């Protein structure tokens, strides 16, 4: 273990030593000075002092590096994920991602290899177009033309902006502008000098004319040697005799110091700092600082106004955010995704969040809670009702059974009555028959009292039986 620790210490020391030597330590790219990542179009060399666009070659070969363009505004979605600039010649992969052609092809040569830089899906591509077509390799292909159209229509500034060109236009027209119309594009001066040589200096288009713009003449103010090209710069920044009268103090200053004078001249006329809130006052800076600023209501109120403005901006931002949320929710509703309205959170969580952030909605929340409770109670009652309903139907059945039984009972009762009636009538009949018999027997006894005693004994038995 100790040996390893020593070794590591050694290594550390070495690294620190290297770091001191190179100034960058571990991070110095050693042996990695291979081809640097460069776009296809290499910009034309420009002069070191003012960067811009120069025409040195013939008109046909005037490549413009679109990557150096300055855009007026960049919509994030139109940016290539690799160079992070609006797409230039966009290509799309089978996994649906879009890159500049040069960027994605450069990636294929990098350690990542033939994979999509965004999801690392394997992409088939061969540089040799013939082979690509034969083997039906088509994992990357030109993006829909509308995408190129949109990116080509983005507004860009002129490459000569630093030389003073104010042009802004669509990207597709930048080449035409630079080559054909921009006054600040530089060309080699073709005038022949006294010695028979071509002048050859790079000169902006606006200076090219009949005479060689590099011919020297004396400055009208100070007498220094200048030419047309340097005249503007000389008068503004170098000439010590190019006086300019100050409107405030009526003194004269050279142009080159005039701007700094204006910033401190006490006599110069300025407007009240409260002018944005409606103050019409204007006067010298002196008066402003000594008298007006202590009197002006607008200046006094400016703190309050600023506060209000900040608050207003906050509210506008918040409003915007809420609007976008609502539109997301509406979209989700129209698309029928009611369960999770396009948010990563569940609907309940979003509602909770809104509740916790906005105390003014407490009342609504109460109602909502009540509503939920009522809904639950309602559910309970509903189940109760269903249970009761089934019980009731059972009772109904029982009731039917009972009425059926009662009916039957009545029927049986009737029958019983009939039976008893029949029985009593039969009894009466029998009684009547018995009476009849008794009468007949007494008659018989009366008639044959002496001769037939046996018969009377048998009939007596019969009577007993009944």
């Amino acid at each position, binding site marked *: 273990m100790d040996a390893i620790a020593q070794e590591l210490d050694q290594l550390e020391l070495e690294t620190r030593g290297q770091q001191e030597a190179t100034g960058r330590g571990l991070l110095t*790219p050693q042996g990695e000075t291979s081809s640097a990542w460069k776009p296809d179009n290499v910009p034309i060399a420009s002069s070191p002092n003012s960067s811009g666009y120069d025409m040195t070659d013939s008109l046909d070969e005037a490549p413009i590096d679109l990557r150096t363009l300055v855009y007026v505004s960049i919509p994030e979605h139109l940016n290539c*994920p690799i160079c992070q600039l609006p797409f230039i010649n966009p290509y799309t992969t089978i996994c649906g991602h879009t890159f500049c052609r040069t960027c994605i092809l450069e990636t294929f040569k*990098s350690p990542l290899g033939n994979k999509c830089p965004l999801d690392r899906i394997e992409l088939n591509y061969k540089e040799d177009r013939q082979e690509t077509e034969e083997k039906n390799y088509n994992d990357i292909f030109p993006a829909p033309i509308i995408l190129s159209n949109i990116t080509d229509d983005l507004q860009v500034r002129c490459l000569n902006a630093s030389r003073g060109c104010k042009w802004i236009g669509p990207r597709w027209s930048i080449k035409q502008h630079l080559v054909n119309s921009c006054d600040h594009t530089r060309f080699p001066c073709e005038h022949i000098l006294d010695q028979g040589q071509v002048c050859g200096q790079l000169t902006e288009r606006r200076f090219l004319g009949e005479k060689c713009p590099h011919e020297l003449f004396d400055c009208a103010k100070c007498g220094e040697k200048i030419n047309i090209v340097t005249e503007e710069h000389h008068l503004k920044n170098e000439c010590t005799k190019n006086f300019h009268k100050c409107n405030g103090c009526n003194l004269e200053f050279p142009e080159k110091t005039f701007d700094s004078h204006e910033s401190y001249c006490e006599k110069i006329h300025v407007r009240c700092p409260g002018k944005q809130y409606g103050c019409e006052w204007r006067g010298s800076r002196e008066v402003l600082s000594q008298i007006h600023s202590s009197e002006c209501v607008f200046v006094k109120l400016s703190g309050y106004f600023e506060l209000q403005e900040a608050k207003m901006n906050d509210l506008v931002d918040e409003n915007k955010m809420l609007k976008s949320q609502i539109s997301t929710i509406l979209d989700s509703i129209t698309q029928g995704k009611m369960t999770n309205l396009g948010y990563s959170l569940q609907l309940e969580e979003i509602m909770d969040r809104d509740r916790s952030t906005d105390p003014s909605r407490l009342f609504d929340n109460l109602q909502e809670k009540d509503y939920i409770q009522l809904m639950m109670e309602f559910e309970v009652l509903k189940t109760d009702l269903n249970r009761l309903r089934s019980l009731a139907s059972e009772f109904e059945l029982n009731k039917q059974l009972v009425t059926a039984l009662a009916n039957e009972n009545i029927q049986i009762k009737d029958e019983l009555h009939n039976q008893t009636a029949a029985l009593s009538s039969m009894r009466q009949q029998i009684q009547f028959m018995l009476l009849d018999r008794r009468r007949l027997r007494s008659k018989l006894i009366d008639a044959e009292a002496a001769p037939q005693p046996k018969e009377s004994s048998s009939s007596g038995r019969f009577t007993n039986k009944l």
Partner: protein
Amino acid sequence: MSLPKRIIRETERLVSDPVPGITAVPHEDNLRYFNVTIDGPSGSPYEGGKFKLELFLPDDYPMLAPKVRFLTKIYHPNIDRLGRICLDVLKANWSPALQVRTILLSIQALLSSPNPDDPLANEVAEEWKSNEQNAIKTAREWTERFAQ
């Protein structure tokens, strides 16, 4: 060689719209070299610490990954004594669609969740696996000692 537009844009965004808990400032005389500080994530043993790192964008960036190294000593199974970091997106899983911003976020996440199963500092990883309580205690002590 002039600085690619992408590096300028990334630097502008890092300065104007910084990631919470992370600062990255380019060196004055080499705009490819950044001084980085990462705040120890809350809930980790590195909480309260300010960790210094250096970050260098090689010439082939973004085709090659940036080179990042901890300058502050740190007790972490995936960071060795020299400050080298074992992180897939810095090596094999680098993609040109990643940025300095995303890499620094990954490193911040690595502080929150050390992975002793893929160690760079073996002793630390062993300790982390056998006695996690103790390892976390050591990490906290180191944070107090070196990362203030």
